[in-house]
């Protein structure tokens, strides 16, 4: 016991020596930073190709792996959406497009995009790459577990895609997987398909928990000296809070998937009441289909914010860097992220207003849902107030930010329609819902991902992406996606229900045929435009303009590594020391329009910088 104590002391003493030994030799008190409390982490350095690039423990490589696999899965989701739009816009054109296939594609598109693309990409991809760099750590705190996390995700994707090749094909129960239909004949893939879907989700959750623990503990325990919580970039705040949500929400999905598998395989009746099918009473009884919906949406709504909060964080940083201005109301932004995260656990049943649950719940959930609009609106105000009197670089990254603001505000406001219980009644289960959630949690987060790719590519690859291609990519995507989803709301007003393979000749929707054709054409173009990015990456990886150090003149730590791209261990011999928040842009009196987080106060003593 006493020996341990002594060890600790030695470390402290060493670290304080390092501080006074570093820099110019004279360290005024104003530059004082608390010494490190624990020693540095030992890292496993890979030696072979396999340990360096495949079973790798470096969070940056794992981040890129997550990014690539999520993108690959996302492209499958994109192709499925093309097939769906082909059917909706031009029914009968593709002979293989039966109702079974249509519903299977709908289901796989939804699940892939929400879980295997967006969630994996934001948390697994950006989380892994950015958290250690942004908080000044050498790596995630559990690198081995982190590696296992990615490979669990890999197996989960494998199982998911395998369901395309089993008898009956993948499940066609809709991404919400509602029982009883998910496991009854009459829904495609009700045997093997749904089983593999549940197994894949369970694997995903298990793998994700390993990664999530890493993100949380790295943020809480491995921040470098001086990096207080309230100095962290909002990207880290967003990913951190989203991970807390994920840790609490995913277990509900896990038990839901597990219980439904038991109903399916062992004949239990968690979600299955007495059912009459083809004239015969099945051997189920007493279960509650609505229970599954509660479990699903207890996961499903926080899931929206698991995607949205990292997007909020990242967009805040992108806007701030490229508007050359501090993020407006940083503390408000942090509390809004945390508040939205907490509230997101009290709104889930707004997906269930017309589900048959006790309708009196509607009052509670409508109120909580509309309350959550307040911190969300504050975030929007602060983004545009950050642009106010900024010095805005209208490069590709900023274009994605502006596109995000428009699509997010649009989707957020249609959310107020749907959250407001009685307004939801006519609109729920119609195309209005499809348009709303694609705008707010499809296109808006995609805008953030794209902005983030153009922003951080110079760090990851050491070269800029081509701006001209980037602008084509942006305008095609933004204008195309907006013209898909904006008019789609009006299909919902007419009353066109979602998940309809065909409308036949419903009297009041004949006018919508033209719009469906237009939407489909736009969808083909927007999908194809994404390949511009892939071409851009391939092209500039070798021949792009070299980026050098800190090409965007950013303040945050990830740009301040000794080598670009950063090596394993990130920081060379010495960890950085942090003296300020990540947003000291355009400080009056400063030589340049940014002061990095590592700049000690003594160097900028003559400026009017506020203490953070």
């Amino acid at each position, binding site marked *: 016991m006493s020996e341990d104590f002594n060890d600790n002391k030695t470390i402290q003493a060493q670290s304080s020596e390092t501080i006074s030994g570093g820099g110019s030799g004279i360290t005024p008190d104003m530059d004082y930073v608390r010494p490190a409390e624990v020693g540095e982490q030992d890292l496993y350095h890979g030696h072979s190709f396999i340990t360096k690039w495949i079973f790798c423990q470096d969070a940056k490589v794992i981040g890129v792996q997550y990014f690539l696999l999520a993108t690959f899965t996302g492209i499958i989701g994109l192709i499925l959406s093309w097939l769906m739009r082909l059917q909706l816009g031009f029914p009968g054109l593709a002979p293989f497009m039966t109702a079974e296939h249509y519903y299977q594609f709908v289901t796989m598109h939804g699940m892939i995009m929400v879980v295997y693309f967006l969630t994996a990409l934001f948390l697994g991809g950006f989380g892994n790459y950015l958290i250690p760099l942004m908080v000044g750590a050498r790596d995630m705190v559990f690198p081995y577990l982190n590696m296992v996390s990615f490979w669990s995700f890999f197996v989960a994707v494998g199982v998911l895609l395998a369901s395309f090749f089993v008898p009956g094909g993948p499940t066609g129960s809709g991404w919400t997987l509602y029982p009883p239909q998910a496991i*009854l004949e009459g829904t495609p893939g009700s045997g093997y398909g749904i089983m593999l879907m549940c197994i894949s989700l369970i694997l995903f959750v298990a793998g994700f928990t390993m990664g999530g623990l890493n993100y949380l503990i790295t943020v809480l325990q491995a921040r470098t000296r001086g990096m207080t919580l309230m100095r962290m970039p909002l990207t880290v705040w967003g990913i951190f809070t989203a991970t807390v949500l994920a840790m609490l929400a995913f277990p509900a999905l896990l038990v839901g998937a597990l219980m439904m598998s038991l109903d399916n395989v062992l004949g239990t009746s968690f979600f299955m009441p007495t059912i009459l099918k083809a004239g015969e009473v099945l051997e189920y009884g007493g279960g509650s289909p609505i229970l599954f919906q509660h479990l699903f949406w207890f996961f499903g709504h926080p899931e929206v914010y698991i995607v949205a909060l990292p997007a909020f964080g990242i967009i805040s940083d992108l806007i701030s860097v490229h508007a050359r201005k501090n993020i407006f109301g940083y503390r408000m932004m942090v509390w809004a992220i945390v508040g939205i995260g907490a509230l997101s656990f009290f709104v889930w049943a707004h997906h269930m207003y017309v589900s048959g649950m006790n309708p009196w719940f509607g009052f509670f959930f409508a109120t909580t849902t509309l309350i959550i609009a307040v911190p969300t609106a504050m975030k929007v105000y602060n983004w545009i107030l950050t642009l106010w009197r900024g010095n805005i670089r209208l490069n590709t990254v900023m274009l994605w930010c502006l596109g995000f603001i428009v699509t997010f505000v649009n989707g957020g406001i249609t959310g107020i329609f749907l959250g407001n219980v009685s307004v939801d009644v006519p609109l729920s289960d119609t195309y209005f819902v499809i348009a709303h959630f694609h705008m707010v949690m499809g296109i808006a987060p995609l805008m953030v991902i794209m902005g983030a790719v153009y922003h951080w590519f110079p760090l990851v690859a050491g070269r800029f992406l081509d701006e001209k291609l980037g602008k084509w990519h942006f305008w095609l995507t933004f204008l195309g996606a907006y013209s898909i989803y904006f008019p789609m709301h*009006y299909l919902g007003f007419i009353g066109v229900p979602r998940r309809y393979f065909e409308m036949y000749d419903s009297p009041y929707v004949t006018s919508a045929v033209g719009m469906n054709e237009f939407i489909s054409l736009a969808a083909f173009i927007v999908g194809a435009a994404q390949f511009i990015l892939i071409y851009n990456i391939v092209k500039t990886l070798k021949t792009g303009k070299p980026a050098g150090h800190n090409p965007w003149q950013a303040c945050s730590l990830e740009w301040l590594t000794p080598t670009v791209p950063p090596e394993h261990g990130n920081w060379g011999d010495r960890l950085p020391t942090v003296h300020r928040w990540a947003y000291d842009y355009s400080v009056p009196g400063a030589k340049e329009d940014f002061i990095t987080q590592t700049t000690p106060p003594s160097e900028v003593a003559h400026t009017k910088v506020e203490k*953070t």
Partner: protein
Amino acid sequence: MHVGIIFFLVILGSVLFHIFTPWYWTDVASNWGGMDDTITLTFWIGGGVFIAVCLFMVYCVFKFSYKKDRKAEYKPEDKKLEKILTWATTLGVAALLAPGLIIWNQYVNVPKNAIEIDVMAWQWGWQYRLPGEDGKLGTTKVVNINDNNPFGINLDDPFGNDDVMIQSDVINLENNRPVKILLRSVDVLHNWYVPQFRAKMDAVPGIVTYYWFEPNKTGEFEVLCAEYCGVGHYAMRGGVEVQDKQDYDNWLQQQETFSDLIAKQKILENEKTKLAKK
């Protein structure tokens, strides 16, 4: 420059689309016009916020785009402004929530004079049952359902005998008389939805759910299933015909009751046994 212009045109286009759209809701044919009004209110407030935020953004793009010799403003926080914005937003949100909740209160409280209709759903079709002269529906059980008892009425329930059974996917309703739709399903989730009535609710196997409306336009309407129920979901249609009292009464007279059905079946069975004896 062109960036700001394009974004401005996107906003302008959205507004013009909304004003001139040929695609808008069908004429409401029930008492739930208040839902449309709340939607309109939400459009005004929400649309106003959307336009304001986006125009502010466009203005910033025009006014503050990068110039080498200019520096951005340095202003980490503005407590007062943030406070004003928070309260203004809260107020706006409350203004939207209040009418929403008032209408919901009407939605969950069914008027006493509403006629109850049992809407039974299965993969993939509908059938309907109305209370007979006693004004009450007989209780049901899924396990009772067979060819002789298509609604699964409990035979020992006296209220069931005079129930009017409509084994068709089209039902007639009396104009200006509130109906309470009692939904049940024998297999998976369904949802009995007529866009012109605005209202909807899932039918959930194992429980009975409800909603109500009062039709106020005569005519024929299409019923759609609004909750995904398997591969035949898109084809699960039905119909409603709203009629004036006299037409409705005539129609009702011609429908079969449960006791009619039982009697008919008894005759059939007697004939069968007679045939067998011969």
